[in-house]
């Protein structure tokens, strides 16, 4: 009992002080430096402002029929895709990728998919206008939006010739967020990943996307990717 009293007294004498880092107080003997605040790199930034896609959808400016008598995941186009002005509509649909709410998210995803499938050479000239919507979508740092955007990027590089090479100068705009999330994998140990087919693991998707960039980006692609994502290893060299 006396021993406990002693340790309590000793504890009283050795009470620690909390101190801010790099302050004079932190140099005292019993001071405990407060840990640094979380940087929030993985924190999602929720959508605050309405996207222009939502505005145009509500106004009826998009060339898609909005009734829901579709069987399966299809959208009906009012105008043939081949006749659409890609410079006007493709950036609009890419802007809608930030939406997660139904039906905006669905129409944006399907619209982008259909336009990339049937765009051909028209897509290459629109690439500079797509970078800002892609960057905004990645900056939300939200898992669902990230997955959608990465799948769209994978489709983009295979949709037409020279698109992969046209993207190389813009790597410094779109790859920083991929660098943050590349290690966001799920360690299941020896468990089975039942959701693998749904392609929802961000780390794996980023790896696949970077490999697609390297495969279709030409000769300079790898070095540019390595500059922005240092932990990426080539899938073509070595």
């Amino acid at each position, binding site marked *: 009992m006396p021993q406990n009293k002693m340790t309590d007294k000793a504890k009283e004498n050795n009470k620690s002080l909390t101190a801010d880092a790099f302050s004079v107080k932190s140099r005292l003997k019993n001071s405990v430096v407060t840990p640094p605040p979380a940087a929030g790199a993985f924190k999602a930034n929720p959508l605050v402002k309405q996207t222009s896609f939502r505005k145009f959808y509500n106004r009826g400016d998009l060339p898609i*029929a909005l009734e829901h008598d*579709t069987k*399966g995941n299809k959208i009906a*186009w*009012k105008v*043939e895709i081949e006749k659409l002005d890609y410079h006007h509509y493709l950036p609009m649909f890419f802007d809608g990728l930030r939406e997660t709410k139904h039906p905006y998210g669905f129409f944006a995803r399907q619209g982008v998919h259909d336009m990339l499938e049937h765009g051909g050479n028209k897509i290459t000239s629109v690439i500079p206008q797509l970078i800002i919507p892609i960057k905004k979508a990645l900056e939300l740092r939200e898992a669902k939006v990230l997955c959608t955007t990465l799948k769209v990027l994978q489709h983009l590089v295979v949709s037409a010739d020279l698109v992969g090479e046209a993207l190389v100068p813009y790597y410094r705009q779109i790859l920083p967020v991929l660098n943050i999330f590349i290690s966001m994998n799920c360690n299941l140990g020896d468990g089975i990943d039942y959701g693998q087919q749904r392609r929802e693991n961000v780390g794996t998707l980023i790896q696949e996307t970077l490999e697609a960039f390297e495969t279709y980006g030409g000769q300079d692609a790898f070095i540019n990717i390595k500059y922005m994502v240092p932990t990426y290893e080539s899938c073509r060299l070595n």
Partner: protein
Amino acid sequence: MSAASVIPEPKSMTRAKKWSDEVEEAYRFQVAGYKGEAEYIALKGLEVERWPDSGYIKKLTRKDGNFYYYNKDRECPDKDVHQIKIYSYN
């Protein structure tokens, strides 16, 4: 009205059991609201646009004038195969 009389009436209908290229064709027409190729050509009078490699349907015009675009590869999921109607005109 005259166009309606040109549409061939199917003699019998069976449900598909297993996926095949014919089932995929029928799926794509039925998603767009047609019974099959015969009805589409009778109503629209247009040739069906197809993908060059796989030969699957690429684009269809719906009855209300809007367009449906389809993928190069298989689109019909296994769970919908048994809902597809195969019509025969013989």
